[in-house]
């Protein structure tokens, strides 16, 4: 991290930046929090320092050539092939360096393709314009945009897409992998410590590509198990009468045509599964916080928060809306 800061600082100075620059928790490749990303950090710094040396050596050659370039008389003979100078510095040296880099890269590539432990858990990740669906194999748990995993364990992801190409990327945890129509890709994730890691779609997928954000939330295994058990369960019957009215608003308006709340008749998978919506911290792939007011704004006018999102605006009386919000907030 300090080295990251150093580079950042020197980069910015070199770019004639004014003003201070404090890295503020950027989801940086050089601030790894998982086995996969840590390998990359090592490879990055290896290549970085090799590059610095190569750059310095070549620039030194150039500088000397320029500084000494004021002869009165120059050689007129032509070196047709370039001679030993070019052979050594232009062929032998680069070949050796590149061969070394290649071998190290290959080694890291193999390491990235196999998880350190046999994954016990497999999650299907399905990309949609513009949100992420996560289905936990074997448990029936389905959620969106906030993907919980246990710490210290390898988790397998099966990546598919419902529409165009997307790319699943959590910079601090693991390499990115594309989600390609008609193809099943797979990758693994492993986080060392509990935390909330920002991820995003990396392949341009249309209007809201920039907002196709998600979070990987790593919990201690015990905490994760109870999260998973809850997430796998069906929605509880609404307790209060307001929420019960909200449920019927939900089931009778358009919502049920696109969303699923397990345990009710709503079982569509066009939009995110809302069975345990209230447990999420954000909605609409990180665009809004999951608060009552933002939820209300989203339901009435999703297009103002996330133009182009595949959810239409809904007109509701304020009593219906209140009831609906009660219901949704009760989906714990």
């Amino acid at each position: 991290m300090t080295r990251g800061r150093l580079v950042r600082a020197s980069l910015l100075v070199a770019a004639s930046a004014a003003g201070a620059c404090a890295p503020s928790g950027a989801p940086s490749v050089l601030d790894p929090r998982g086995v996969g990303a840590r390998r990359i950090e090592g490879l990055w710094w290896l290549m970085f320092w090799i590059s610095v040396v190569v750059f310095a050596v070549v620039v030194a050659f150039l500088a000397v050539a320029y500084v000494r370039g004021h002869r009165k008389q120059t050689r007129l003979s032509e070196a047709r092939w370039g001679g030993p100078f070019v052979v050594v510095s232009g062929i032998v040296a680069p070949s050796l360096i590149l061969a070394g880099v290649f071998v190290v890269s290959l080694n890291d590539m193999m390491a990235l393709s196999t998880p350190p432990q046999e994954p016990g858990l497999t999650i299907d990740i399905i990309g949609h314009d513009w949100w992420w669906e996560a289905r936990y194999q074997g448990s029936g748990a389905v959620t969106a945009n906030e993907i919980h995993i246990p710490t210290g364990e390898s988790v397998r992801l099966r990546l598919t897409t419902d529409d165009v190409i997307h790319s699943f990327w959590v910079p601090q945890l693991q390499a990115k992998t594309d989600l390609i129509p008609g193809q099943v890709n797979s990758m693994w994730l492993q986080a060392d410590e509990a935390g909330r890691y920002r991820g995003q779609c990396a392949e341009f997928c249309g209007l809201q590509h920039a907002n196709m954000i998600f979070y990987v939330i790593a919990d201690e295994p015990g905490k994760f198990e109870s999260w998973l058990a809850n997430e796998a369960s069906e929605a509880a019957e609404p307790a209060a009468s307001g929420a019960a009215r909200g449920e019927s608003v939900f089931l009778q308006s358009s919502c049920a045509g696109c969303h699923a709340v397990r345990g009710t008749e709503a079982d569509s998978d066009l939009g995110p599964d809302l069975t345990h919506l209230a447990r999420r911290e954000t909605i609409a792939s990180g665009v809004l916080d999951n608060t009552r007011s933002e939820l209300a704004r989203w339901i009435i006018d999703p297009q103002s928060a996330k133009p182009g999102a595949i959810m239409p605006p809904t007109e509701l009386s304020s009593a219906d809306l209140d009831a609906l919000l009660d219901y949704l907030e009760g989906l714990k």
Partner: protein
Amino acid sequence: MATLEHSVPRTAGGLLEWFTSVDHKKIGILYLSSALVFFVLSGILALVMRSELAQPGLQLVDRQTYAQLFTMHGTGMMFFFGTPMVIGLANYFVPLHIGAPDVAFPRLNAFAFWLTLAGAVMAFAGFLTATGAAAFGWTAYAPLSGDAYSPGTGADLWIIGVALSGVAGVLAAVNLLATIFGMRAPGMSMLRMSIFNWNIVVTSILIAFSFPALTVALALLWADRNLGSSFFEPAGGGDPVLYQHLFWFFGHPEVYILILPFFGIVTEIIPVFSRKPVFGYKGFVFATLLIGAYSFSVWAHHMFTTGAVDGPFFSATSMLIAVPTGIKFFNWIGTMWGGKIRFQTPMLFCAGFLFMFLMGGITGVFLASPPLDYFVHDTYYVVAHLHYVLFGGSVFAMFAGLYYWIPKMSGRMLSEGLGKLHFVLLLVGMNAAFFPMHQLGIDGMQRRIPDYPASFGYAQENLVSTAGAFLIALAVLVFFINLFVSLRRGPLAGDDPWGGYTLEWATTSPPPHHNFHRLPPIRSARPVFDERRENAQAGPEGGSP
């Protein structure tokens, strides 16, 4: 040597002559002018993007417009600025370098130019349609570029426009090859050709063999959109990865199409301004051929994250291609070593080219390593890399070439003072604009986004980058001022203002209709130099080469 016509002739036939001419020099100038127009247009699109990105949040444009901006910026720069600039320079200077009166097929030449321009206008005309221009990136990946996700005329105009200019590129390339293989003056053996010509040979071969892959990809895409076929639609049995293979089978050679000719220009200029012959002529030629051949074997390094390609193979070939590039680098250094260097504007731009291209080359090796690419692919790191190569490399070398050759084309020198100002502004601007992007990419900022979180320190780096972009604009403005002023009032250039080596300096500036009244004897790759030396030895003063 021709000495009679030192004045600058006005075009006889007026404006109409520019539309009807089949003279390779006129067509060359048409290519250059239209390329510069699209350079400015695409540059303006980039300035709008950079203004939007100066701060987090959306201030200037909406998301859809932003997508059109980066799509048409990339498209304009690659297809309607870069490639035509290359073909234009080749058009003008290939016949001059080999002592020929014109290209092999002058009418085809004119046709190719007008077709290119028609394609460019068509693609940009998308901005005038109701749904706007294409908005799927210059790569137009399926299925995003299909009719379901990108309805609208703009996308079809893009496909047709790019395909037309691709076909035109193939016509131009075939013409150049025929010219070089068939029309060399007596004595001009292949191994006495200028390095620039050699690079055009390889570039033309790359164009001829890679653009058809693009044409096929675009034709299939068009059919998917308009005829209901499913070449790239998995629902109908198609494969979106196939599109990527076709695109990059073209796309990677395209990168070399946009750099090899500029390597050629730099290799012409550095010897002249170091007063030495090029160091390792054959090594150069060999390295260029090798790069050309390799460039067809690396395309899938753009697809490492698809999980559908052989990472180790494409990584190995991609790293291998750095070796011939290294050869060239040390040939340039060897050429300057112990030379007598004159830092006039063309040479300054070459120096800028060497440093910037070195940066871009090194950051490229990172991308050739699959595990690193898994991380920085599709981030601003790639945007930084590609601009170091294409802006720091190609555009710097282009300006070197323009300062070097415009005196030949126009008969008048460009101002040295303004040229140096242009260089300094461009160098500072380019680094301010693109260097911070490396850090942005490493910090996780993906490309093709109009907005970014305010919190991760992205804001400062983006602000610096935007300031740099405006410095670039200022530098380019200085260039155009220089051009307009100097073309009217610049000092006359004479035949050979730089003490050049190659045949274009043996004729008047600008050259007469059929290029040469008389050719010097061609006994090496530097006939003009040879003749000058013989004259000097025969003459009273002796003097330096």
